[in-house]
């Protein structure tokens, strides 16, 4: 019970936090389903739900996993929910009594709008009671969900989150349907902008159905796609007819996306592509070689400004535009290789002295470099070269013949091409002698060196390659926007790209794409969340590191590394994988006498 109470208390405080930060009050009219399920409502109930869910995680008692019974779960969830609701309810009453107008000057988001929504024209005490009731229900739901049998839980879970997802996708799906001239008012209401109730129910049922089907036929389906039976060695991808069809379908979808989804969405997707490219580059540095680089914006900026200078951009000055101190007028496609070479050289020059520093020192030095280049590019000193705070204009549009790429729909394809290229290079490297060297270096640097891998060379290689890809990202970005201002090149870019790599799973290429879609695409489409993006990043990074350091789509290798500790303990408890000898003595990987 203590655990439930504690979880509930934390949930209550978190909800107050969400209110204070504005995630409730500012979203009372972001309708997800109908007009009842708003984002604000979601924020109010999500903490109790999670509290209930967390509280019922199976315990290990006496070496055995003990799960909760339905009754136990329900009561635990109720307790958690009740406490959460009580705390938040008390908060509501307090604000009402103290007076919103006295709090608002300090906590901007404790506003009349918020209070109106929370009290719904009822006296505060009543509202609080309702909140308690709702939280109790939420907590119980979260708790009970955990202990439901798989057959019910999986379809239910999928149904809920997919429906909510569609609610969030109200900026994409209706537009796509409109473009394709498909009736969509029954699904997405033009009035509320969110899902309609019938539409939501339909999506829920369909998802649940798919989930049930997957459970029954999943194995055979996966086998048909991947073309191998159980227990076969993990080899290179085998091409079955089904996998080819799926791949082509996926490719087709990606290619026609801009036309189906319209310019606005295409523009966001273009940015997603650029960040995906950056993510692929940083993935080499952080994921393959294990070097924490916090200054990736350095290469991004270098690439963008180099491209500008090489392709004849002009400086944006008060008197119109003038030419920079150094200017060439190359074609975009000639300039890009030059940019890559510049970035690689810079990477080597910087890396040589810096890469032998220990992990956290390296992180801070790279951060310093990232900051430095931003300061330099903004400075009056380099103004004659790169335009200072006003930046540069007239960036090339990478035209081939008459076909320019500045149009969002066209840029998407240009970026996509580069992303595919980078993916290919990255994938090939990962599965080569070089990738092996990087992995060895990452697992144990000194031993790798002792085994003949020149650690300095390979660290440098990873850094330079990552830098080269990052600079191409910068060059693309310059083309996309057509002008450059230092404001686009803040250290935050480094951190965002790092967030993408982490969230998607350090070392995983598909993860980088997913990470980019989620961390760049979603906020891009849901503009009101722009303000909360960094807050969410921070929370997500901390959460991922605490719960699942391998990210959303784990790279199998990395997973193993980060859970080494757990494994060691499992082994110690006698859970050894097939082998004839039992480990002798204490932990064999421990340190012995000199």
């Amino acid at each position, binding site marked *: 019970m203590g655990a439930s109470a504690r979880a509930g208390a934390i949930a209550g405080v978190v909800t107050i936090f969400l209110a204070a930060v504005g995630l409730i009050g500012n979203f009372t009219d972001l309708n997800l389903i109908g007009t009842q399920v708003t984002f604000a409502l979601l924020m109010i109930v999500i903490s109790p739900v999670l509290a209930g869910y967390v509280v019922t995680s199976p315990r290990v008692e006496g070496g055995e996993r003990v799960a909760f019974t339905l009754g136990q779960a329900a009561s635990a969830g109720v307790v958690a929910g009740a406490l959460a609701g009580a705390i938040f309810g008390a908060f509501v009453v307090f604000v009402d009594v103290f007076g919103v107008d006295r709090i608002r000057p300090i906590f901007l988001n404790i506003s009349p709008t918020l209070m109106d929504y929370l009290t719904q024209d009822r006296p505060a005490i009543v509202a609080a009671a309702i909140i308690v009731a709702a939280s109790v229900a939420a907590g119980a739901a979260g708790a009970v969900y955990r202990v439901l049998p798989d057959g019910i839980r999986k379809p239910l879970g999928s149904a809920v989150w997919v429906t909510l997802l569609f609610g969030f996708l109200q900026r994409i799906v209706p537009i796509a349907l409109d473009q394709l001239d498909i009736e969509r008012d029954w699904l997405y209401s033009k009035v509320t902008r969110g899902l309609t109730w019938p539409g939501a129910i339909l999506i829920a049922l369909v998802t649940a159905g798919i989930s049930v089907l997957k459970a029954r036929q999943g194995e055979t389906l996966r086998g048909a796609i991947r073309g191998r039976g159980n227990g076969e060695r993990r080899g290179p991808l085998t091409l079955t007819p089904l996998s080819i069809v799926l791949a082509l379908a996926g490719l087709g979808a990606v290619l026609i996306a801009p036309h189906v989804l319209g310019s606005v969405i295409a523009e966001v997707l273009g940015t997603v592509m650029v960040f995906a490219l950056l993510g692929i580059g940083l993935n080499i540095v952080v994921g393959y070689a294990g070097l924490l680089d916090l200054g990736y914006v350095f290469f991004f900026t270098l690439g963008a400004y180099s491209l500008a200078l090489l392709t004849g951009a002009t400086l944006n000055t008060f008197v119109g535009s003038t030419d920079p101190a150094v200017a060439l007028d190359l074609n975009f496609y000639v300039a890009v290789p030059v940019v890559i070479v510049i970035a690689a050289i810079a990477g080597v020059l910087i890396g040589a002295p810096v890469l032998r520093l220990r992990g956290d020192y390296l992180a801070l030095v790279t951060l310093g470099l990232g900051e430095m280049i931003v300061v330099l590019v903004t400075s009056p000193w380099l103004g004659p070269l790169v335009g200072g705070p006003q930046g540069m204009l007239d960036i090339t549009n990478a035209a081939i013949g008459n076909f320019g790429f500045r149009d969002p729909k066209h840029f998407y394809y240009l970026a996509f091409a580069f992303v595919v290229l980078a993916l290919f290079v990255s994938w090939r490297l990962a599965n080569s*002698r070089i990738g092996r060297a990087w992995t*060895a270096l990452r697992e144990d640097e000194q031993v790798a060196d*002792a085994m003949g891998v020149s650690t300095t060379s390979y660290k440098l290689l990873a850094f330079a390659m990552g830098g080269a890809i990052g600079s191409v990202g910068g060059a693309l970005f310059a083309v996309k926007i057509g002008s450059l201002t230092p404001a686009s090149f803040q250290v935050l870019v480094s951190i965002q790209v790092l967030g993408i790599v982490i969230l998607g799973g350090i070392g995983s290429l598909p993860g980088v794409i997913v990470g980019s879609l989620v961390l760049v695409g979603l906020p891009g489409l849901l503009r009101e969340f722009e303000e909360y993006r960094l807050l969410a990043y921070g929370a997500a990074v901390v959460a991922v590191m605490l719960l699942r350091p391998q990210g959303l789509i784990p790279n199998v*290798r990395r997973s193993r590394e980060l859970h080494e500790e757990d494994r060691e303990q499992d082994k110690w408890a006698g859970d050894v994988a097939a*082998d004839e000898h039992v480990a002798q003595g204490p932990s*064999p990987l421990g340190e012995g006498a000199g």
Partner: protein
Amino acid sequence: MSPALLEVEGVTKRFGGLSALNELSFQVDEGQIVSIIGPNGAGKSTVFNVITGLYPPDEGDVRLRGVSVVGLAPNRITRAGIARTFQNVHLFPNMSVLENAMVGMHCRSKAGVFGSIVRTPAVKREEETVRERATESLDFFGSRLAGYRQDQPAFALSYANRRRLEMARALATQPALMLLDEPTAGMNPRETLELRDHIVRMRDELALTVLVIEHDMRVVKGVSDRVIACDYGRKIAEGTYEEVANDEQVIEAYLGRKHEELG
């Protein structure tokens, strides 16, 4: 007289105020198995670390076939032909058994960035060769590291197999000289004898020169062409096993420690 494969001459290494190695000198001739014995703290692992370039000696020289290797990076020295195992096993835990061995082949292959991306026929052939040679090193240990084992992650292996894998990985670097640091530590008698035979096979079948640090005198007796005894970082005796085992200084050094270890 042909130059010895390995010459350690007057090597001194200090840590803080303590001399781990004190003007240590010895030679290892090609095709021999030489054991280094001595009580704990005698500086034996330190010798290996100096030879393989982990840190330089404060004084003295280390020569491979007459050419000094002091000051070279460890990976260079490995490339030059010296391979080692560690006292505490240091595998790459999340790489598979085969991949661990393939890392050993790194310094004997040369696929570069361009080749790796484009996968030229030459590179593909080299990958095949790397795989073959790595498998050969694993097969040296018979069925222990063969077949389905090769795809298992290294952390899943039993202790004895981990030691074997470390040796296989070192073998994969195709060395001239193998340095084995207490290879049988923690093994049961059966495994120990098996390993002893492996060491002899390294000399006989693979034409390697082996330098072994060992505590288990049955192994020392069974493999050594020569034995070097150390204490407090200096050599106190050298010769055949019988000569060293009966040397007064050696007995004295072991007195009060585990006297049963001898003979």
